[in-house]
């Protein structure tokens, strides 16, 4: 059970300090909201699962504004989005978006390109070695920032964390970094996810109970150390050649951001509560996959509800995910099955079950965000949660029928309760629409060549 922290103060990024002392009411600046939702922050969440979908079991039935995820003629059939039936009024179901970027730039492997381009909507770039044997870019990267970072640029404000990246067995493939990472500040500036919920909890929440005096001292010490370290970085930077300087500069930027998070004092929002302590668990064990995911979602919801960040992502495994869904009784792995579904009815059903399971997780996240009351609305109302995939069809590595589900309206900016057939439009344009919904005045995102403009339906 979550416990309220209305009588606690909040220390950001102070893992390890846990000295409980009573707090003065005066030290608890809670932002007052007169009941409206206009002044609640806007949030954006990415929810990724891999290997495409089975379209005829994913597609809604009905019309654009009146649809269902359950087949009335065949109610016993497992349909992928059925767990979202209670939420359909809060959703935009988007089918047939295309990664048109796949026909541009270097690379060629469907999982490399699919994952690298999924959130960046941009080309890949070769690494410094210029090494691109066939399609693989072993030291390559992406050409631009991912959409979550572009949105963070608009909405992050002075929150302690500009964005938070969470993973569930989102392990790095050493040989194919591009398949296993999705969030980027820019080329070669990857944002790796935290796969360990307890570490994430410690980072974000463990110090909620700390003594304010201790907190102030710790912050002062950290600031003095980071200041001193920053001077070393600055001096070194000036002496380095261009490419090394870039590396060191970006490290210094990260330190400055950390310092900033130590100085940012701001109040808690009404919905803020202590999330469950995840506890030490073997977060890399396959059987713990559901448990870790649930813990990470709990942390995401409260990180948003407490306004520690306004942008978060949850990466379930990686592109080409090889997770075997043992808890559903499957013997093969997700990626293996995604290539076997077309000629094996049993495996096809299992693949539907895998995607249905992810829909259940998405529904859990959406439900939890709805339970956080913010003024007249909920956390979900003030957010967009985007479920995305690096493929359309896992078998063919199709780039042309990529399934997206959006939940939440970004405070009324997006009309929900709709099913949209994007008819092959570049996924860039979805991101243009999202950026606009969050208040950015843009006409393109990522590779401008494939952009038409914001999607008229959004």
């Amino acid at each position: 059970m979550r416990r309220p922290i209305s009588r606690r103060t909040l220390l950001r990024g102070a893992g390890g300090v846990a000295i409980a002392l009573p707090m003065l009411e005066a030290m608890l600046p809670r932002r007052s909201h007169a009941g409206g939702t206009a002044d609640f922050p806007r949030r954006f969440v990415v929810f990724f699962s891999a290997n495409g979908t089975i379209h005829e079991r994913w597609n809604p039935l009905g019309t654009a504004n009146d649809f269902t995820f359950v087949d009335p003629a065949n109610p016993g059939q497992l349909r992928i989005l059925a767990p979202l039936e209670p939420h359909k009024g809060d959703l935009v179901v988007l089918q047939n978006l295309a990664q048109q970027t796949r026909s541009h730039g270097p690379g060629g492997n469907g999982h490399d390109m699919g994952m690298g381009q999924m959130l960046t909507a941009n080309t890949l770039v070769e690494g410094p070695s210029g090494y691109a044997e066939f399609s693989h870019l072993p030291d390559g990267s992406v050409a631009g920032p991912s959409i979550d970072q572009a949105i963070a640029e608009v909405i992050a404000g002075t929150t302690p964390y500009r964005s938070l990246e969470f993973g569930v067995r989102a392990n790095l493939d050493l040989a194919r970094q591009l398949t296993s990472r999705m969030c980027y500040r820019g080329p070669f500036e990857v944002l790796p996810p935290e796969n360990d919920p307890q570490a994430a909890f410690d980072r974000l929440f463990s110090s909620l109970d700390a003594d304010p005096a201790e907190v102030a001292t710790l912050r002062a010490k950290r600031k003095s150390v980071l200041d001193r370290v920053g001077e070393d970085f600055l001096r070194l930077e000036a002496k380095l050649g261009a490419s090394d300087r870039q590396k060191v500069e970006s490290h210094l930027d990260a330190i400055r951001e950390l310092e900033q998070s130590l100085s940012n004092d701001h109040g808690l929002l009404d919905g803020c509560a202590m999330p469950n302590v995840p506890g030490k668990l073997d977060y890399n064990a396959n059987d713990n996959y559901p448990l870790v995911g649930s813990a990470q979602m709990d942390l995401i919801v409260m990180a948003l509800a407490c306004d520690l960040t306004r942008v978060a992502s949850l990466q379930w495994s990686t592109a080409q995910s090889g997770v075997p869904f043992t808890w559903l009784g499957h013997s093969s792995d997700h990626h293996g099955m995604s290539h076997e579904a077309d000629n094996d009815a049993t495996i096809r059903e299992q693949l539907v079950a895998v995607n249905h399971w992810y829909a259940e997780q998405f529904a859990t996240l959406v439900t939890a965000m709805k339970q956080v009351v913010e003024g007249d609305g909920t956390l979900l109302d003030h957010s967009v949660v985007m479920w995305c995939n690096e493929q359309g069809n896992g078998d063919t590595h199709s780039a042309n029928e990529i399934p997206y589900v959006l939940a939440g309206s970004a405070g009324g900016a997006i009309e929900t309760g709709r099913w949209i057939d994007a008819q092959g439009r570049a996924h860039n344009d979805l991101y243009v629409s999202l950026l606009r919904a969050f208040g950015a005045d843009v006409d393109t995102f990522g590779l401008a060549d494939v952009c038409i403009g914001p999607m008229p339906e959004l």
Partner: protein
Amino acid sequence: MGDDGPIAACSDAPSPGRSPIRRLTAFEYDATIEDLFGDTTHPAAGFPQEGGSGLDNNAEVISVSPLHAEKFMQAAESVAARATEDLAALLPCDPASVDDACVADWLDEFGERVWRRPLDAAEHAELLGFYQEARELHGVTEAVSLVLQTMLQSPYFLYRVEFGPASASDGVVRVGDWEMATRLSYFLWGSMPDDTLFAAPRAGELATTEQVEAQARRMLGQPRARAMLLHFHEQWLDYAAIDGITKDADAFPDYGPDIAAAQRAEVDAFIEHVIWEDDGTVTSLLTAPYTFVDGALAAYYDLPAPGGPGMQQITPTGRELAGVLTQGALLAVHAKPHETHPIARGLFVREQLLCTIPPPPPPEIDLVPPPIDPNATTRERYEQHRDDPACSGCHNLMDPIGFGLETFDGSGRWRTTENGLAIDASGDLVGTDVDGAFVGAAELGARLAGSQMVNDCVATQWFRYGYGRTESLEQDACSIAQLREGFSAGGFDIKELLVALTQTDAFLFRPAVEG
């Protein structure tokens, strides 16, 4: 070395290639903290995973995210807290009477070890000033802790900063002596220099190629080299995923975490034995007829129980072993949860051992693997799939290599039948310098061991690891030629290759830092 006449690819002017700034990997961070403080808590265990090109130390793809910077901060805080628990052990004076002179001495001695070079006067003064301010506010112990935190988050600790000698101007410079000590120690040990290695730059004894070689040979005899070798091999041979691997309980009811852990111990013991006890050659790595088992693994593999506790060497009869090719960990990782994966095994051989990367499947084609058929072997199913001309061009490069390993099931266990049908382990090598048909793992291993492509590939993989980057065939032509010659002259002993890696233009020189 170097006395065998000029190497054609090398001109008079050294060509070091790119020399990107290197940052300590998580592996190196932990080892360094252990060497500095005797702290074995592995503070880097929770750092974000990083790397590229198949290696965790590719300097050109790694970057520091805000999460990573925070992890560096937390690690520095916890290490410093532990290190200052016993000030007497840390400081060169009585902790009851610590004065600034004591701290100043400590900064000189310890600073040199932490930053792997002497502190200059300005750095020394700044750190001492920082200490004095902190002592006023927080007392001696905490002030020492804060100085340590500062040093451990400094770029001079986290990065391997190199400028070469100050006088350099001509575009390429020899790596400075202190910088060379650091290059050697992180390459051969994955950690900081020891006292002997620190003494060398102080005495000006790392200035010549011969002095570098002598240090390298000494260093290979130290325990740290063993840990580094294993760390490289688990990446090169791509078996790290054995830790925590999941196999299908129906297909492999006797397989569990204990067997996976034993297979990890098996492959580690095997590689250590080949490199340090056996002749250390690529041939042994690919053909050795022995492995290592404990009681549980022997039972799982259906081998006689070992004669002693722990991992024991065994040369089984009645089955073919072929070095790393038949190591349980590699076979289990390059497999599906419920069966073998001949394509993955073939791809592994091509990418990791031959350094040839087959093209990916063309976009938008149906990649249907053969359906499960209880009346056929895995091989028979994949052979049908290879009949499609759209696939066979590339799959002929991979699948027939994997077929040769079909006498080992998806969990790395020897077998002679599948679904009641006899295993056909005949295979084929195509597009290599050792092309042709073969039967079984032993023939495959012997064939690969005789391949110049494989030897060159091993040199290339080590190049990437040693220099933290992918090779450039133009700029690095000389270094690669130097490596191959050193490897060949050393009888393709991996240890000689490691020495050769310290004798190239890429290791001894670097581009001058442009102003």
